């Protein structure tokens, strides 16, 4: 288990991997690393919730396991499943051997013998992401993305994992993750629906507010090819755009793409044309052009 990551250290290290944390963020990551608490991250779309998990994984040098939640997701897709085909094939292949063995045995003896065959052992278990994270062979950063998109039942199946870092499989018993291999867990939510209290109680809570202009500038500046003036212009521009009450507010990731697109454009091209990278909606596009937010870049 990775230990002794102080909040200051986290703050600096996250910056090194290209993420700009606030004090709150570094505290929350510290809770995840040092206290082993799952962190529930909420914020506007594009606030960098998913990216935080990615950056933490990069900072710690751990692989990231990402589970995308959606409506209709079932527990056997994220926790574990039994390899039904393998079970079936195994039975087929040992059928003759079994028949030979059982020849001339009484029923009771046959049952005793059949007991030895373990059809629900670990061999037949398919590790879905959460079981994989708890298996103890490797420490992971586990990202449960957009938990609010799935139904409430799925939340409840997660409780045991969040609480004890274990999964109880009825046929096999409880699998508990060794302490030093416990995954670092992030959950994200867009507040599409209210998460259950039971889930919230088990998590530390982090709300990532919208980025301010200066924060945006810091982030954009980090891009390798970016000049400072361009980054500043884009940050100012994004700030204006965010106040336009658009249907879809462009996120930082989009702003980054936009910036690199502008860099790749020819010098004298119309900057209006680059908006295809930023807005995905006719009305929004018109709104931005009319508002004159792009003047910041000219």
């Amino acid at each position, binding site marked *: 288990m990775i230990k002794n990551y102080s909040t200051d250290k986290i703050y600096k290290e996250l910056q090194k991997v290209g993420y700009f944390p606030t*004090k709150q963020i570094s505290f929350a990551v510290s*809770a995840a690393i040092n206290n082993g608490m799952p*962190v529930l991250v909420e*914020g506007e779309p594009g606030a960098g919730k998913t990216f935080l998990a990615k950056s933490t994984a990069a900072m710690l040098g751990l692989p990231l396991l990402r589970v995308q939640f959606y409506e209709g997701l*079932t527990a056997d897709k994220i926790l574990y499943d039994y390899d*039904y085909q393998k079970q*079936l094939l195994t039975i087929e292949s040992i059928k003759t051997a079994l028949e030979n063995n059982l020849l001339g045995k009484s029923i009771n003896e046959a049952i005793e013998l059949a007991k030895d065959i373990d059809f629900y052992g670990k061999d037949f278990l398919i590790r879905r992401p959460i079981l994989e994270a708890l298996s103890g062979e490797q420490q992971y950063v586990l990202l449960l993305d957009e938990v609010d998109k799935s139904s409430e039942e799925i939340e409840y199946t997660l409780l045991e994992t969040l609480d004890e870092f274990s999964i109880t499989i009825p046929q096999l018993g409880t699998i508990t993750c060794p302490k030093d291999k416990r995954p670092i867990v992030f959950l994200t939510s867009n507040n599409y629906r209210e998460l259950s*209290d039971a889930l919230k*109680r088990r998590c530390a809570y*982090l709300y990532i507010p919208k980025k301010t202009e200066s924060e945006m500038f810091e982030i954009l500046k980090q891009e390798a090819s970016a000049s400072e003036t361009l980054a500043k212009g884009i940050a100012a521009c994004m700030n204006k755009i965010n106040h336009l009450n658009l249907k879809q507010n462009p996120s930082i990731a989009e702003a980054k793409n936009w910036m690199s697109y502008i860099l790749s454009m020819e010098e004298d091209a119309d900057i209006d044309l680059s908006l295809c990278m930023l807005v995905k909606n006719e009305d929004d596009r018109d709104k931005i052009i009319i508002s004159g937010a792009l003047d910041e870049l000219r």
Partner: protein
Amino acid sequence: MIIDSLLHFTTFLQDNGYSISENKIQQFFSFFANQKELSYTSESDVLCVMEMMFCSTPKEVDSLRTLFHIFIKKYKELVKEKEDFKSQTEKIKQKETELDQKLQKISDKNDAKLQKLKENKERLKSSVQNISALSNKDWNFLKKNKDMLKKISFQEDSMNQLMKELLNHTEDHLAAVSINCDTNFIEDMKKALTKEAEKRVMNGDFSLLQQMNALMGILKRLSKNLEKISVNKIEQDIESQNNWFWRQKETIEKQKNAQKNEMQRIQDELSRIMKEEQQGRVVCKDYSVFHRREFTNGKNAVYSDNVLDYMTKEFENLTKSDQIEIERYLRKNLTKFRTKMNRRIQSTSRHEIDIQTTIQNACKTGGLPMQICYKEKKKNRPNLVMILDVSGSCKAASSMMLTFMYTLQELFPGGCHAYAFVNSLYDISDIMKASKIEDAIDNVLNAIPRRGVYSNYYAPLETLWKEKHNVITSDSIVFFMGDARNNENKSGIEFLKNIARRAESCFWLNTDRLEKWGTGDSIAYLYSEYAKMYEVRNIAELAGFIENF
């Protein structure tokens, strides 16, 4: 000390609607324990960790800092109050000891005085014990020799006066009690009498000598009698002294009692504060942002105080400010409504095995069901179609309905269509989508000519069925809103029938009072055959309907 106050703060937060379990508090402290460089004394550190551990919605994060400052202010006040009380008790104790000392002094003084008086009394008592008052014999003597004694005159008037008194009172034996004299005076009188006698003897006048001699004896006895009277006086003095002492004592006792009461009051107050402190209810709850208790009480919405007023107010009576309040209320509870409605809208069917297909597939693998097929979930993409009567009678209700639906738009993945009519149908979906909620409703109402036209249900129903019927699919939920008062026009029931058949479900929210349905020009019962009809006359009913439909 700091940890104490932090614990108090958590209870304060709970009073303000935060849900904080003991587990969370434990985690809060263990976080600090794990991070050596953090300290409880740094406000920003503590607030950061609190935001993380105690909050669960962005709203809570927002209000945490304000609450913290309010708490600190109140906590300081409380500490000051406590100190005040403590100093007050000190003062009262001091006063009490002062009073005690005073009382001691007074009683000492009193005791000394009483002792003296008593001694005096004892002494006098022993001396006058055997002496009786002027005897009858003396009085008889005075009576008999009245005329003779009158002849004796002294130089001083007061002595003459005494003589006169003595002689006047021979009948009632009351002399000397009322006479203003004391033993010294009588000694003087005795001396004067001797001088008088000597004078008379010198002049050879022996006529009064015997009487004078007797008078001398009487005076002697009188003097003793007077001494006895003065014993009575001392007794009186003692009594008055005692009375004075008791009065003093009483006032002091009174003061002491008052002090004691004050002390008791302060101690009560102090113990109340201590108790509250122990329970953690340090700071009163006059500041409450949103009270969780109100919606864990079986209700799923947060009502602010005045919401309840307009919740049951009829639509027509709502003022502009009420409407703004309602919008605010709706937006505040949006997630709640959404979660609740979501449960009803989204299909709840489980992951089911499709036995038929599984067996069919098993045929390919020699009877072994290698591939298990699951039933495909029924795609549930409801869309919403609203048809609103915006004529004068239903305008208020319709605008509230629009508000509701505007906020819930994104719930319907299949989209949301809205139409308004008075006597012909207008598509208002675009207005709804394009503008902000505040303007949307006004824009809608402005876009439709309403002056001088009366509601007609036939034309809009016809238009909807003939021209817009592609909007209504088997996933549609159709709402009509209106009072079903058709001004004697054709009903258009055949169109409604078709619409209701095609749509998944069809509702009619009637803004008319239930008992008025079917009276006058109302054709509510006709429509209610195909569209489930509900009486909706205020926000509470509307909200209730939307939660449960």
